[in-house]
């Protein structure tokens, strides 16, 4: 069963397909997240555990990303402050 609007590149092999809707995913983490978000009622205990643990990992990575975004914002802000101080 193929999921509408997705294609798998020829030299790529999907990490897995969703058992409930057939959506293929390149990594197991994304598949687990998808199952937890789209089919929360169908999950068994193992799948729920997996979902919660992947979700916790995702949360950690998001925290790093937020820090990077904050850094970028600060750089942008002070960069423009300097520019305005010099030019205008």
């Amino acid at each position, binding site marked *: 069963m193929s999921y509408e609007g997705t294609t798998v590149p020829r030299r790529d092999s999907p990490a897995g397909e969703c058992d409930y809707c057939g959506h293929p*995913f390149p990594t197991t983490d994304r598949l687990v997240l998808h199952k937890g978000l*789209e089919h*929360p009622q169908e999950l068994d205990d193992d799948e729920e555990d997996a*979902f919660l643990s992947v979700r916790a990992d995702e949360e950690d990575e998001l925290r790093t990303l937020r820090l990077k975004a904050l850094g970028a914002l600060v750089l942008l802000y002070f960069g423009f402050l300097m520019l305005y101080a010099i030019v205008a």
Partner: protein
Amino acid sequence: MPSLPDSDTNTEASEEGHTESGPESRLHNWVVSNTKLRLLIQFVTWVSILTLFTGTVAAGNGMTLSKQPRDTLAVPRWLYLATGGATIGASALLASFVTDRAFIRYLHNWSLPGPTVDDWWTPIRWIGHSLGIVVLGLAVYLGLTGPQLPTASFTILVTFVVVRAGLPMLTYLGGNVWPALNPWRGIVSLLPAGHRTYPKELARWPAVGGLLLLVWIEVIFPVSTIPSILSLAILGYSAVTIAGAVLFGPDAWFENADPLSVLFRFFGAVAPVKRRDGKLTVKLPGSDLTDSDLITDTSDVAFVIALIWELTYSGFITTQTGAATTEALVSLSNIGVGAVQIRAILIYTLLFVSGYVVFFAAYWYAGVLSRRRTGTYITAKRIAFRFAPSLLAIAAGYHLAHYTGLAVSLSPALGMAILSPLSPPANPLTLSPPGWFEGLSIAYVLIGHLLAIWAAHATAYELFSSRLVAIRSQYPFIVVMIGYTVISLWILSLPGATPPYLP
């Protein structure tokens, strides 16, 4: 709460069902922890940060631009453009802080139910269509027989101030009233229609072609200055529309092929007021831009890009830089054959088409890059379809920036023409908008882009199960949006001019 089920994500309803269903479920915890209070606090925080940030930048630009001659900025132009682009980039960074799916869904599903309109719908349509038909008839008749002065002509004022400027504004700021006004629909409803089924493969391509053709005619022919020519154009448009709607049936024609109806339908997607299930519903502006059923074909994307490009193009050719570019290209193309006018028309057309292709290709390539960068199996086409509605907010911002001045300055003339359509005053009052209107235009462009950034963010969260992927998928689109903003802000900062060689 009219939540729109999306094939990709669970909707509020399924989530609620889930929370009710199982005390045994540990998923329960994270769903319930998103209480209304937390949502409210987050909402207030992010809205205030966003408005504070954009407010200061927009106001800063506004002040620098309000000093009269349009070409003297208090800061160098590159810095002004960089600031505009950075505003978009910074708001994208800020949006990436909002990682709470429940909160995003809550914002996009929020709605206030209004009065039921279904009982009134038929009489409203009858009145609206009759009004539309009377105005259409008057416009054609007065254009041919009335005064041939643009600011005193009912035809020109109704076409450009009402249909070109005012109605789209009403549509994206309020709600789409065009289906109730559309005079051609009124006419066709009286005729036997639907002799052929509309070919599905054509999708919205006729509307894309129609929109581009209308804009091209607006640029090349003196439709905005000579009422009789405009009348002929309206007659031609009416003939095509009525013939098409009679042949394919009004529903199929106005849904797919009629450029005006498709334009108003798309602008209506940005609007806060909707008619849904027979009720008027108020939603947050732009919250329907995450709908997966708004853009279902490449032609829909082409139409949305055409909306952005036509406003950029007509802005550009009416600046001194645009005029100089055209003159340079026309003199370059002097190879000894063809009159200057013909070559000028060719150059205008070439600029129009090539710019459109560039805008479209840039957007499409962003979809391809988005797929490649995130390694997702979702096709680039589907990604492009899903992100395209957010561009409508940009188009609305451009439209408001380009047409507010026109609408305000010609509104007294329009009033006069409506009060006495047969004998309007020969020299009607036109207002000249104050200098801060320029600053307001910049604010409109930026607000449109910010709404688009938010809509893209929310769309990405609906499309991808991993939030990191959702954030990364937006980067190429943000770059394209920054590009569109910078071009638009650049055009707004250029001194105005009359396009050369045109009648």
